């Protein structure tokens, strides 16, 4: 028994090392010739890999990949990922020359950081057709990203429980909060972006020149506590803290579930959450309106992500990637997927979606009428400030007796610190 075990273990050990490396020998040959794993060309048309952050469209992307291969003979491999780990994985892949062909980036700071790895996309035919309000991302003048879609957020409300006219000023909203008894009036949720990240965008975005305003805050020339829009926001937060369940205790799922089942009259969300509502039996009409700081009623609209091509990949691979993106936005199959399967709002001139859910439709209408606010948080705030600084302040606000003044001061401090790091 002992002898058998020993011989077994030994043989296995010897065979193993040989086998595991030999078994991967087929990919070793292609590794020696290319810096990215996807550059090996298959018999027909080559191969690209896609790695992007929206896990909600993963299934549809996989179906799209199959259709793309049928139409063009190019193989498309879609890499799965847990949403939160996306950027650190992307960074690690890029730094070890294992990056995907096509990937997504979310913000100016990510684009800046990845600038060495981005291919120039200005030559793409689709670029000239993109709506002006949602132009492609640029890095030092070169166009390097194609917008996914337009998304908007604000107060998503249940029309049978509250009308926008009831909450179109801060005072009205504050008195509405806590009024409805059994039904929660207005609810945030505990995740960083939904606790403070998105909603804090509003007081910045309503300023006359948000970009300049941000710079003034970072330099200490302006204090948030002195600005009316921010004071309004602090009032709203205080009302929530006093009269509603602490948002720190509410998860995104519960937040959406409460709304869909009529337990909450309004939530701070965006058009992306509609797909969650489909899982419940929603019986009411819903709409979206802006957070009423300084009497605002416009929703905040921006581009959540951009498609980018790996500038570190081989020339052929880059071209395949560019072709794919162009196809996605101009071909019949591609646009069908974009609009009907992914549920994206069209970004290309002339494209009109007929399958938009009510909230997305509302956002599209706002874009058309120009009644929108920018996504200052995405474009102007220091990198990762939301999870590193703002969320802890908001959590502290909801779990302690912090005053409104202290709240605004701490937020101010966060911006100054983060901007000057």
């Amino acid at each position, binding site marked *: 028994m002992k002898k058998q075990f020993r011989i077994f273990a030994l043989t296995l050990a010897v065979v193993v090392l040989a086998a595991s490396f030999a078994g991967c020998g087929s990919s070793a040959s292609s590794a020696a010739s290319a810096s990215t794993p996807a550059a090996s060309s298959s018999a027909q048309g080559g191969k690209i890999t896609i790695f992007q952050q929206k896990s909600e469209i993963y299934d549809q992307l996989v179906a799209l990949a199959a259709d793309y291969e049928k139409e063009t003979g190019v193989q498309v491999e879609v890499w799965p990922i847990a949403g939160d780990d996306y*950027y650190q994985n992307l960074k690690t892949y890029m730094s070890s020359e294992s990056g995907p062909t096509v990937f997504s980036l979310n913000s100016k700071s990510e684009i800046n950081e990845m600038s060495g790895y981005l291919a120039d996309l200005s030559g793409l035919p689709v670029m000239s057709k993109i709506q002006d309000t949602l132009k492609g991302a640029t890095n030092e003048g070169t166009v390097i990203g194609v917008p996914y879609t337009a998304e908007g957020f604000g107060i998503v409300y249940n029309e049978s429980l509250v009308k926008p006219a009831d909450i179109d000023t801060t005072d009205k909203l504050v008195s509405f909060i806590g009024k409805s008894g059994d039904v929660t009036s207005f609810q945030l949720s505990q995740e960083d972006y939904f606790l403070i990240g998105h909603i804090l965008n509003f007081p910045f975005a309503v300023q006359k020149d948000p970009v300049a305003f941000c710079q003034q805050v970072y330099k200490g020339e302006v204090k948030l506590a002195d600005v009316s829009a921010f004071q309004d926001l602090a009032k709203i937060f205080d009302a929530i803290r006093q009269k509603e369940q602490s948002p720190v205790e509410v998860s995104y799922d519960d937040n959406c579930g409460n709304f869909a089942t009529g337990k909450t009259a309004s939530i701070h969300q965006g058009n992306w959450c509609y797909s969650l509502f489909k899982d419940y039996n929603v019986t009411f009409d819903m709409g979206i309106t802006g957070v009423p700081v300084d009497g605002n009623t416009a929703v905040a609209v921006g581009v959540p992500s951009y498609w980018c091509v790996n500038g570190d990949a081989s020339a052929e691979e880059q071209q395949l990637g560019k072709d794919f993106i162009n196809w996605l936005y101009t071909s019949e199959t591609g646009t069908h997927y974009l609009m009907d399967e992914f549920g994206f709002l069209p970004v290309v001139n002339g494209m009109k979606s007929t399958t938009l859910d009510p909230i997305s439709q509302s956002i599209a209408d706002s874009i058309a009428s120009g009644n929108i606010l920018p996504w200052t948080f995405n474009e102007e705030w220091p990198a990762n400030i939301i*999870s590193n600084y703002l969320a802890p302040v908001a959590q*502290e606000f909801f779990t302690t007796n912090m005053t409104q003044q202290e709240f605004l001061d701490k937020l101010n401090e966060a911006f100054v610190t983060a901007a000057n*790091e």
Partner: protein
Amino acid sequence: MKIKKKWFALFTVPLISVFFAVVILPFISGVLYSFVKWDGLPKNPKQFVGFENYLKVFTDSRFLASLLRTSLFTIISMLIINVLALAFALFVTSRLRARNLSRAMLFMPYLIGGLLLGYIWQFILGDGMKAIGVLTGREDLFFYWLSDSRFAFIGMIVVTTWQMAGYIMIIYIAGLQTISDDVLEAARIDGAGFWNMLFRVKLPLLMPSITISLFLTLSNCFKIYDVNLSLTGGGPANATEMVTMNIFAEIFSKSNYGYGQAKAIVFFVIVAVITMLQVKLTSNKEVEA
């Protein structure tokens, strides 16, 4: 016993060389990178800053706070886990009928890794605790634990203990089983009762297991990350941010690769000194067969 050099090499070189390539070389890279300011991407510039990163570490209050917090967490968890694991091991190697089933059940938590675990416990320690509070009326003890900094910390200890107790238990089981029956028989004949058996006979002979278990709990608790991330995310307001999370955020969220590495090195040195002391202390009490 005299060992020829060639045997020494044959037996140790394979493992040591793989170990060197996989663990040591990247670690050395990390040390080198701790002297630069860099965001981690090869195409972006590295700026040499000498010891600046290290000086920054000692004035970084958030890091120092997380270091203290992690130490406290580790000490408490270590104690609870080891006591519980030993108790479990004793039960499970006794003559109680339920032992086989229990051994498997106690060990199960360790089999569940990763992301989902934290979310489940988030529900238990959040909504779950709240529901118990409403049921029992003791709302001072049972509320949404995760929104209170002290209880969130306790929550971390609970989950870590839950996960690790079964794992350390099997180390104690293996240890208990190496104690020969003769010794136990002899002690019983001498009239030793349960507690005497435990403290005078079993524990000294268990010293190697204790060394190992203390070391494993020490190292796992200091390095804790997954549970930290999925259970509390470091909150509320960074009240439960442990060291690895702080370092990871520095490297990836703040793109401060060099500074993050400096923190990692400082952390490593501190933990290494502590654990080497611990191993030396308990090793000296071991009895070679």
